[in-house]
């Protein structure tokens, strides 16, 4: 069964990170990505650009409205995701817990709805 692991964190902290730390994070993400590809859990994944680059699109009463920014202002923001294959929630949680971002932010693990 597929699960989406949404990676949330306070993006205002990223620029404040010393280079050594952010390099370390990068390396950990690379290692994580490789390990779940090897284990067969990886289906997809991407890092997102910060919410300052986001635009929100809505259609109301047939009219298109585009606004600057994420859909809502939140304390932690969506920074990336992994789409994984896991046999059950326990396995999905184990994988999600290994995402480096779990240590500084929150990982939401949500099952993909069946067709």
């Amino acid at each position, binding site marked *: *069964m597929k699960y989406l692991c949404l990676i949330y964190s306070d993006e205002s902290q990223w620029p404040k990170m010393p280079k050594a730390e952010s390099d370390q994070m990068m390396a950990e993400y690379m290692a994580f990505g490789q390990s779940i590809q090897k284990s067969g859990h990886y289906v997809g994944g991407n890092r997102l650009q910060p919410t300052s680059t986001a635009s929100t699109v809505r259609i109301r009463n047939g009219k298109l409205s585009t606004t600057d920014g994420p859909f809502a202002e939140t304390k932690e923001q969506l920074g990336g995701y992994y789409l994984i294959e896991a*046999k*059950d*929630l*326990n396995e999905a*949680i184990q994988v999600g817990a290994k995402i480096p971002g779990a240590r500084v932010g929150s990982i939401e693990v949500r*099952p993909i709805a069946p067709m």
Partner: protein
Amino acid sequence: MHDVDAIYRAESRRVLATLIRLLGDFDLAEEALHDAFAAAVERWPRDGVPANPRAWLVSTGRFKAIDQLRRRATFDASLGALAQELADAAVPEPDVSDDGVEDDRLRLIFTCCHPALAPDAQVALTLREVCGLTTEEIAHAFLTTAPTVAQRIVRAKGKIREARIPYELPSRTDLPDRLGAVLRVVYLVFNEGYSATAGAAVTRHDLSGEAIRLGRLLVDLLPEPEAMGLLALMLLHDSRRAARADANGDLVLLDRQDRALWNRASIAEGVRLAERSLESLGRGPYALQAAIAAVHAEAGSADATDWNQIVGLYDVLLGLEPSPVVELNRAAAVAMRDGPDAGLHLIDAILARGELADYQFAHSARADLLRRLSRRDEAAAAYRRAIALSVQEPERRFLARRIAELG
């Protein structure tokens, strides 16, 4: 009919736990259980009680479920596929030996207490599926409505199904955390029964009894130190039930309780379990709390209490689980050993840090020490703060009486 009743009481929870594993769904299993017992009521008076009632019930329940699914498949084709899957899997007889069933009961407990479920859902689901309480009984115990409880349970079962929470025993690495979640639920149920929140009576012992039963089941199935520690703690608290309230339903504190009313059998068992738990590797906070309760239980009178040992045990407990509430309890013990001033100093330090400001027992403990130091005005103010934070009638009456006694 009488036989079926007795077997229902003895076996229904076990049969349910196994059916959930075989059928892969809580609701399907509950229906199957119901159908199996309905069949038993019909057939056993006629054919006699089977040699292995449990195996008969599991088998019957499973086949009735498969039949049900086949019938519903006319409306929903996917059910037909499920029915076939279950029928194919039904070839080897299910393991209903005591060991096999124990594993299923553990699977059920761990699933109901899965951390991915909301805490109040864990409690409701455990009481319903493991203990067999009705939604009305659960609602009454937690002072809420049956539809609220029913909703929680429906949502929890939905989450189990949709997110695919597996019906399995945690691995050895996961066991400590997962067991912690189960013990938390059990202790919560016990505390609900022990000091009924916002209620008129001090204890609701049916819930406490349920929690102790659950605690025993856990220790039977999984003799881990913390499970033993929790059972010991509950037995020791419960041993004082008869002495905790007087004839008017008013609170009687530990130092004033009539120790002749304490249940010695519970104490003996609790002390034994506390000792075993304390001596084990992997002993934890429940073992320590049980040990503290055991020191109280073994004191012939309030004056004979070994406060020095209690303070020492609190020191170890704080090392395992630092928390301001534990610090507060330690401060009360220090006050008994070294005098009110020493304890007051510690409590004031906690409050100065900004902690426990809204915890009624911090203020009532402080008030008590001020009272013993004859600082009456400050004591009254602290008692009033405690009353404002208290939701239990007997506690409020007790605190009001203390204020009156200050003169």
